């Protein structure tokens, strides 16, 4: 299971780097989605993958009855997914607004903040 997860993380990261090297902001964002999934899997896997019961304590007891799975990485991944989702929504809106105002999201053509003639003065 660990080997398989490691392979998936590797493939996701490789694909995301390929996408992020593209000039278009949309492709970059797709790469970012894949990369954030790869990172989430990394966190999930580093909590050790074991068979176990859900980390629930029955009503009235102080400790769980069976050996439970590690719940902390799941909490971390959940947080990271939520935050990642918010940031992605913002980035998509930013990309869309940029396209609407400037007509391009090709990063080679996006030179409004640093015009070329700046350096020749």
């Amino acid at each position, binding site marked *: 299971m660990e080997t398989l997860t490691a392979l998936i993380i590797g493939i996701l990261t490789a694909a995301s780097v390929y996408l*992020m090297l593209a000039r278009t*902001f949309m492709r*970059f964002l797709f790469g*970012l989605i894949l*990369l*954030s999934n*790869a*990172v989430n899997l*990394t*966190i999930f*896997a*580093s*909590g*050790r993958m074991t068979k176990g019961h859900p980390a629930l304590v029955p009503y009235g007891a102080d400790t769980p009855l069976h050996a439970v799975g590690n719940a*902390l*990485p799941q909490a*971390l991944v959940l*947080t*990271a997914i939520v*935050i990642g989702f*918010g*940031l992605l929504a*913002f*980035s998509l809106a*930013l*990309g869309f*607004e*940029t396209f609407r*105002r*400037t007509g391009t*999201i090709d*990063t080679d053509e*996006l*030179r*409004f*903040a*640093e015009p070329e003639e*700046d*350096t020749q*003065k």
Partner: protein
Amino acid sequence: MSWVLVLPIAVPFATAVFAYLARNTPAGRWISLAGSVLSLIASAALMVAVLREGVIAAQMSNWDAPFGITLVSDYLSAVMVVITAITGLATAIYALGEIPEETERLGFYALFQVLIAGVTGAFLTGDLFNLYVWFEVMLIASFSLLVIGGGKDRLDAGIKYVALNLVSTLVFLSGIGLLYGVTGTLNMADLRGAVAAADNQGLITVIAMMFMVGFGVKAAVFPLFFWLPASYHTPYFAISAVFAGLLTKVGVYALMRMFTLVFVGDVGFTHEILIWVSLLTMFTGVIGAAAQMDFRKILSFHIISQIGYMTLGLALYTPLALMGGVFYLVHHIIVKANLFFVAGLAKQYAGSTDLNRIGGLYKSAPLLAALFIIPAFSLAGFPPLSGFWAKYLIVKAAIELNMWFVTFVSLLVGLLTIYSMTKIWGYAFWKPHPEGYDPTPDRAPPRVTAAMITPIAGLAAMTIIIGFFPEPFVQFAQTAAMQLLEPTDYVTTVLGVQP
């Protein structure tokens, strides 16, 4: 005791809520101002508590460390929180003059207060994953503040800023995941022992490098700084001042924290890399600034160059060097935010920030000229201003280690900084105003000018005070450095405290 640690974070968040509710009325800006004053009081209370007890910690929701989230403050955290509140207050006043009403209605003050809360949280947390969350709070607020008010250049800058910062966050996050996999803990004080006890030290060094890259992008060190000069010259001046003052310093703070508290197993390797990174950061930053002809672009490149001094203080890893690094951090936030404020007022008076299109400010705005001199010369390291003592400590530490090349580069970069500052002085202040460019596009009402010049004068006064009476500040930085190098107090306070 825990309220002292919670209030500096809670006050800006509460202010943000009220400022958002009142965003359509003029009350919004006054709520923001009042909230900033309250933040300053809360951070002063924290500083008093830290000065009395050394290190204070609190466990959130009564979950004992290392399982729950810990808030902890030593000298370094406390001074960073105070300086954040001061910068926040200065910006809140400045924004009264600069920010137009339509931007206020978009929720400018709410976003600004969330940014301050995020920065403060990052300084106070004692939990690595919580640090990630604060970074994100800070990032999402800074993304919005960067593009608020629209304009093609802001959107363009926003794309570059967002893209590189998101990648760095993911590198940082996967570092957290791997570190948790190796040690099984995320509490920073607990990590110190767990990392030292880990059997695979090679893997720890790899993870340390991931943290260095992740924080390095935030701190804008060589070769990861490209997002900074691409974006910092586009937003409102109030915003670029608070970005320039605080955001990159959060990266530096995180580097200082992690590479003194946790990753100290292989100092010869990790800190050696940091030395070279720092030197290249200092040099490329100052050379980049020499090529620019825009007020804010020059200042942006100088942020990069000055970051190098701070990380150099960490990289040399002696008590004196770290003391210089802490002193530099505090001095730089005041000075750099102030220079961006001055740039905003210069644009108000002369109509542009392009040095070729402005001039004659010495004649038309003598008070501004006098107020520019103070932070500019402090940045370059002229005695007796605060920058001189900061540079002096770092250079002295390098000389004590017999690192002559490091000493040479530090002094050379100081010299080149003077070149840039005199360039701004010569073009913007001394040169007569070029013909064909309107000197006063919209003469601002005195209320606006007063709101903008008050924080400039206040921060300049602080620079002078630190410069003429450096003794208490140096002693404070010394204690902070000792706490960083010998974090036994930090560790026992966090792990042993009863909720």
